């Protein structure tokens, strides 16, 4: 008797709870529409809607939204995904290009209650040929490439271009010469990254110049490597350099070798070699990481002349402190052009400077706008629009 009464009370409570839950009358989202997702390879449609009037911040009536899709306005509709409370957008990633799709959105409440919207659409997924979100990047690339090409052309017509002195590169000759005088070898470390990294390519280009000098001066050059492909490239470059210097017989393939990809295994091997063989000159060119200071301090302890160059900002301070000369960032990329003195290569350096002027102007203007906005003298909208113009998605 007692259990039957308890069951009756429970049923009564449940019966009362459902209307209580729906008693607030859940409202559907409105203005459901669909459009092709922009700037993609197709297969995506955006379903958009206005929030349900029941979707109030802090209120728990709405728990989310469910999105349905059909190829016909009459249905049948299938569920394609969900959106969180407060969302007004859902991206359908599995649409077929060229097919019309219709969408409905349900407001979801507690206990399975829902309210369905009107049908929105149709929309078709299409692929775009140009990503308009990246127009700013396209313009910037166009300006920079034009500037570089212009100065390459100007330089090739014989115009003299001023390039400031880079101390580290001026001393490359001296470093090789010193090794020759002391009868000791040169070690060139082309960084820890693979050939897909531009720093490594810049290092290999510089290696060619150093190898030519080493061949001319008849000084032994060793190149320990972290990556096999870099080893192969270095061998080619050094071999060609020795050939150009007229000393192909002096080229020793085994002087350009692979040690290990492991960071500290490589550091230990090179350190040991430096301490035992005491090279007179050491070049660190390319991408380095924590092992940079280990190399540089060991080189310093044996009295070698050290010329470093890297585009790793975190390692620059260590090289600057421990090496005799350091090529900072872009100076590494300028090295090959600088040493070759070839007009077209030097022209490209000039083109870079145009890019710098452009960036400096943009930064100065942006800083001024942000400062004026902070002082209340300028519209926040203009500043936000200016900053947005430089964002690349």
């Amino acid at each position, binding site marked *: 008797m007692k259990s039957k009464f308890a069951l009756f009370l429970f049923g009564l409570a449940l019966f009362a709870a459902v209307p209580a839950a729906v008693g607030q009358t859940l409202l559907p989202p409105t203005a459901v529409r669909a459009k092709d997702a922009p700037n993609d390879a197709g297969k995506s449609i955006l379903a958009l809607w206005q929030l349900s009037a029941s979707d109030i911040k802090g209120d728990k009536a709405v728990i989310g939204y469910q999105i349905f899709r059909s190829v016909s306005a009459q249905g049948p509709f299938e569920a394609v995904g969900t959106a969180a409370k407060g969302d007004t957008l859902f991206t359908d990633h599995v649409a077929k290009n060229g097919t019309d799709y219709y969408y409905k959105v349900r407001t979801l409440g507690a206990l399975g209650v829902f309210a369905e919207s009107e049908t929105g659409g149709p929309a078709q997924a299409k692929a775009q040929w140009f990503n308009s979100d990246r127009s700013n990047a396209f313009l910037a690339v166009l300006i920079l490439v034009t500037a570089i090409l212009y100065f390459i052309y100007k330089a090739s017509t014989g115009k003299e271009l001023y390039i400031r002195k880079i101390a580290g590169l001026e001393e490359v000759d001296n470093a090789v010469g010193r090794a020759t005088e002391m009868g000791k070898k040169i070690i060139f470390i082309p960084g820890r990254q693979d050939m897909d990294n531009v720093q490594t390519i810049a290092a290999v280009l510089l290696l060619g110049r150093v190898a030519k000098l080493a061949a001319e001066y008849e000084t032994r050059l060793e190149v320990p490597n972290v990556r096999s*492909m870099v080893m192969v490239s270095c061998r080619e470059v050094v071999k060609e350099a020795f050939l150009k210097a007229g000393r192909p017989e002096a080229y020793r393939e085994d002087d350009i070798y692979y040690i290990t990809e492991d*960071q500290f295994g490589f550091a230990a091997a090179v350190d040991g070699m430096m301490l035992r063989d005491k090279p007179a000159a050491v070049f660190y060119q390319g991408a380095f990481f924590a092992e940079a200071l280990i190399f540089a301090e060991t080189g310093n302890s044996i009295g070698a002349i050290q010329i470093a160059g890297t585009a790793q900002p975190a390692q620059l301070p260590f090289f600057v402190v421990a090496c005799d000369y350091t090529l900072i*960032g872009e100076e590494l990329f300028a090295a090959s052009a600088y040493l070759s003195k070839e007009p077209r290569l030097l022209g490209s*350096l000039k083109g870079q400077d145009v890019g710098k002027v452009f960036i400096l102007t943009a930064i100065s203007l942006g800083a001024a706008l942000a400062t004026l906005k902070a002082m209340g003298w300028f519209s926040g909208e203009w500043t936000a629009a200016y900053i947005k113009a430089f964002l690349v998605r």
Partner: protein
Amino acid sequence: MRREIPLIITSFVGFLFVIRFFIPHEPFASMENTASSWIQVIKAFAIWLGILNLLKISGEKIYKKDKGWGFAAIVIASFLAISIAGFFFPFWETRTPGDSFIEHARKFQYPGTSFDWFYTYVYTPLSSTMFATLAFFIASAAFRAFRARSFQATLLLLAGFIVMLGSVPVGNALFSWLPQGWQVSDIADWIKNYPQVAGQRAIQIGIALGIISTSLRLILGVERSHLGGEG
């Protein structure tokens, strides 16, 4: 043709991947994934090139008893020890009931295996030791280089002191008399977040421009010294 073919390939692929960034349409959209897969495969195979070279050079050193041949012997012995532990482990490690041979072999680096023993008790301490030497080298480098030789060097020295003290709790403890908001750690945070960030950004902007310029020279074939010959 030895130089022309690589130049043509470089130019074509270079231009393709520059414009790919701006074109979402197929086949450009999936080009990145396809190229990424190719690069992964090539990098994985390239490792063998290096290993064979290492073994060859080490072997020759031992055979000719060149200077430092003992180290070459250690290289080969270490290489063989870890390779055997990893490849042949299925033959002496107990197999979990229900596992096939392949499933068992895949577990070569699980805790308790001989490979894991090498990793935990040989490789890890050795790597950590080499990394730890940085603490000593940084002290000797700082002692030698942080001299107030000029105004800029003095400024750098002072900034270094503040950041070093601000990076450890003892800095605030020693200068606790400074007003709130002006503690050593606050000043150190300011240095790290403003002047340091400005300097980093400037260097990174220069680097980015340098990368664009170098890449353009390579794509256009203006820079060709890496292929040998004149350039």
